[in-house]
């Protein structure tokens, strides 16, 4: 606030107060106050005068001048949260930064673990965040990068406005598409051209990403317009953004990029082209791959015979084949793997006697090439998102080798599963768990759709029940337990009631395990109920039914 500068005889001349302070600093022994009334000592006179000056100054305070006001935050047109959902958000955010510490988790749910799901549901309904929750939301997103996309989408335009005022939240400007500088409307050709010409790298990357998401061709044309002048690192990043909306129309541009000066750019172009089974590159790779893999009919039963390439020629290198293998791998098998993974999978039934993928995978492979060949097919199935081949390569979930270290690792299985429809994926993982238990299942569960389909949920709960009866401690399964809390269908809660009792302890069981299991299941049930409640709170209340839409007694 400002000291009053006017006010006639009540105002103290500025000099007097400064004089009083100087006198007080030096001491009245060294410097006498200007005015000492009769009967007062010098210090008392100084304090009298200072008291009057202090109270006068405080009484005369006035507001100061306003600084430049910030621009208004952009309007958020989304509807506000229903009141119960807003209360829930408050409690979820109150749990943040809390209790991550070790030790037993008790029977209460981890609220912060439910925040991602809550945010996804709120975003799906298109609700706006309550403005006063934005600081807590931004703090939560700051601490957990995995939360950022959903939290920032929910937080909306006001959060970016806020982030420009507080350096702690700068990350929001980087993470949000377009960051600080708003992206031009993608229909605004002039604005797009100018930002592409003059923008910072992050802004240009965001612009290209936005264009690819809406009109892939325009994104590609924009990139092609300046391709020759971009730096190699930038070319690599820009090229990679063509993954979004990739189609056969991109092939000519990618073919051209195969001749790029940068090896990494060439490899990325080849990678993208091989994901287009109709591309010329895929056809060239098919020719090379089929030259190496043939059906051998000389034996009693048909088998696959493999003759790996003898050299990696310049054309192969131009098509993205990396000539030098990593340490410990043979050159020829390294080249073979790259050819097979880049060849369209549609090639193989024609090449191998019209067999289906299942029949091909079942064929014996001579001379120990099976591992190499199947692994390459796995990579191809993932890259080309081929459900039939993924299914064939996954095989039966109850097959013995599905549980152990086979030709196809768990990580590869998880990727193959992603190519299947959610229902089929869930059924496969359920079958796997029924045969092999939970210890290997974590990675596979991670790719299943949430909430888990009923057969999968039942398989997980049954397996947990079996683990409990086997007498081990629940924290050996805390990973799966945590996943179950977040992914199990809340409708399963009632089926879990029987697991809540503390069972009699079998002799060989770990001490106290029964109680801990009851507690873990209690937490599971509580969390499921809470999730059901959360979902219910986010659903808008049904509008008033139209009167007369269903006449109560009309039919008589």
């Amino acid at each position: 606030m400002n000291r009053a500068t006017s006010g006639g005889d009540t105002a103290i001349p500025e000099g007097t107060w400064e004089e009083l302070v100087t006198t007080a600093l030096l001491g009245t022994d060294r410097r006498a106050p200007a005015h000492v009334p009769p009967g007062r000592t010098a210090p008392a006179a100084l304090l009298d005068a200072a008291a009057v000056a202090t109270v006068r100054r405080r009484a005369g305070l006035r507001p100061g001048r306003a600084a430049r006001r910030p621009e208004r935050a952009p309007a958020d047109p989304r509807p506000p949260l229903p009141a119960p959902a807003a209360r829930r958000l408050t409690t979820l955010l109150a749990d943040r930064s809390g209790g991550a510490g070790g030790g037993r988790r008790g029977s209460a749910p981890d609220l912060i673990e439910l925040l991602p799901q809550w945010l996804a549901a709120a975003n799906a309904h298109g609700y706006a965040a309550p403005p006063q929750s934005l600081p807590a939301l931004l703090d939560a997103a700051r601490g957990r990068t995995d939360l950022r996309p959903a939290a920032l989408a929910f937080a909306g335009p006001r959060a970016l406005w806020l982030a420009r005022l507080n350096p702690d939240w700068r990350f929001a400007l980087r993470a949000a598409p377009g960051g600080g500088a708003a992206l031009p409307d993608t229909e605004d050709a002039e604005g797009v051209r100018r930002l592409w010409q003059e923008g910072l790298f992050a802004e240009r990357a965001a612009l290209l990403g936005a264009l690819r998401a809406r009109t892939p061709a325009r994104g590609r044309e924009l990139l092609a317009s300046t391709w020759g002048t971009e730096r190699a690192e930038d070319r690599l990043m820009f090229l990679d953004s063509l993954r979004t909306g990739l189609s056969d129309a991109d092939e000519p541009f990618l073919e051209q990029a195969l001749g790029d000066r940068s090896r990494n750019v060439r490899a990325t172009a080849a990678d993208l082209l091989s994901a287009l089974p109709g591309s010329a590159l895929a056809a060239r790779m098919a020719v090379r791959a089929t030259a190496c893999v043939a059906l051998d009919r000389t034996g009693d039963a048909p088998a696959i015979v493999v003759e790996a390439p003898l050299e990696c020629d310049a054309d192969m290198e131009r098509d993205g084949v990396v000539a030098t293998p990593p340490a410990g791998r043979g050159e020829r098998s390294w080249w073979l793997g790259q050819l097979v993974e880049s060849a369209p999978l549609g090639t193989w039934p024609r090449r191998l006697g019209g067999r289906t993928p299942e029949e091909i995978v079942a064929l014996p492979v001579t001379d120990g090439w099976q591992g190499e060949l199947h692994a390459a097919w796995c990579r191809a199935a993932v890259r080309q998102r081929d459900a039939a081949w993924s299914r064939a390569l996954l095989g039966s979930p109850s097959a013995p080798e599905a549980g152990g270290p086979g030709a196809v690792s768990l990580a590869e299985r998880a990727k193959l599963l992603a190519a299947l429809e959610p229902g089929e994926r869930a059924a496969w993982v359920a079958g796997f768990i029924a045969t092999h238990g939970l210890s290997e299942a974590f990675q596979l569960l991670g790719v299943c759709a949430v909430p888990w389909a009923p057969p999968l949920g039942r398989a997980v709960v049954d397996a947990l029940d079996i683990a409990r009866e086997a007498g081990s401690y629940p924290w050996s399964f805390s990973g799966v337990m945590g996943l179950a809390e977040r992914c199990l269908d809340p409708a399963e809660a009632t089926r879990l009631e029987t697991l809540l009792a503390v069972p009699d302890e079998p002799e060989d069981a770990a001490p106290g395990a029964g109680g801990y299991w009851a507690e873990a299941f209690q937490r599971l049930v509580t969390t499921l109920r809470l999730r059901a409640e959360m979902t219910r709170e986010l659903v808008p209340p049904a509008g008033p039914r139209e009167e007369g839409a269903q006449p109560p007694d009309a039919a008589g």
Partner: protein
Amino acid sequence: MTEQGVRWTAEQVLALAPDAASRRAGSKLGVAGPWSGTGSGEGTVWGLCKGSGSRPYQTVVDLAGASGPGFKCSCPSRKFPCKHALGLLLLWAGDEDAVPAGERPPDWAGQWLAGRRGREDAKKTGTEGGSAGGPADPEAARRRAERRAERVTAGATELEQRLADLLRGGLAAAEQAGYGWWDETAARMVDAQAPGLAARVRELGAVPASGAGWPARLLEECALLHLLDQGWLRRTRLPDALAATVRSRIGLPATPDGPPLRDRWLVLAQYDVVDPKLTTRRIWLHGAASGQTRQLLSYGAAGRGPELSLPVGLALEAELTTYPGGGRARAALGERFAAPAPAAFRPPGTTTAEAAARYGEALRDDPWLESVPVTLDRVIPVPDGDRWQLADADTDTALPLTGPARSRPGLWRLVALSGGAPVTVFGECGHRGFTPLTAWPEGAGEAVPLC
């Protein structure tokens, strides 16, 4: 009491928590899972919470009692309220099905409740009887008061002497002397039974280390201390109200003596000032009909939250009695006629210029006043370099925010709520600037606590 519309919001429940850990723990228990046998009725909420032991904890909360929410839980926690009570209230606030209304409390809850309400009645009749009959031995009480006044006078005289010595030698020398001199002086004032003087002296000790401009601040505070000493030494020549203000600033006990004012009191703000020995809770209330703003103080010993807790945004029908002394708005909570319930009204607001003027006028009745409660209408939080201010939306004037207000998370809730648009803000306005405590958005919307 009807249950309709009296359930609190989660914010209001969480405001009861004594600390951040309790907020978290309480939030985790605000779900149906661990609870059984829950119910609410007659202003009470109860339930059984499954803990780690075999017997569930019995938790009861009395929301309607005359002395503020009361909590009872069979858990061993020393936090008050404990996480179970908080969780139960959250559950009750959020889910009508989980805590059904209109039930009769079970025996274990009913017994505690009957005991509590019985004690309250006894206290009420007890104090009424006491005030009617006066102290047991008025002569002895008068002698005690005289003896204390003599000691305070001796203390004030000694303090005047010490201040005079200080200024004779100069404040520059005092800076080098360090904290010890102030500490010793404060101890002397404690001996003199003048806790108000002791607290001021102790605060003075920190001024020399408070950065640029400290000599002016130290002189201001020394001068106000001197003014208080002088006020005490000449109290018989002061107007009654000012003499009462001096007595209360010195720290002499006072009893509320104004006529009781019955009103519907909106809870504007509640915050705690924590020091190692004592937690002081300050609650600002605004009367719907009277337009008066009053402050309640309640205390908790170290580590315990003060018992009185009134969440922001609720209003309670009650009588308040003010303490003697002009300028200050301290009051005591008397009889309560209905439990706190959500209220939609807001205090009437004013401008930054009027707020500063109000502080100035209040100094006439109490020159030691640090700030006055004010509601600002249509103000916009504005960054001003490293500082922040609240600017009038319609004029060119602004109040700076106080230092503590600028560093609290509440500042960001205020800025987020505003989004550059005008908001209504209640807070304390004084010579150090404005401390925002509660805000309301433009248009309709609930009160948002900032502290």
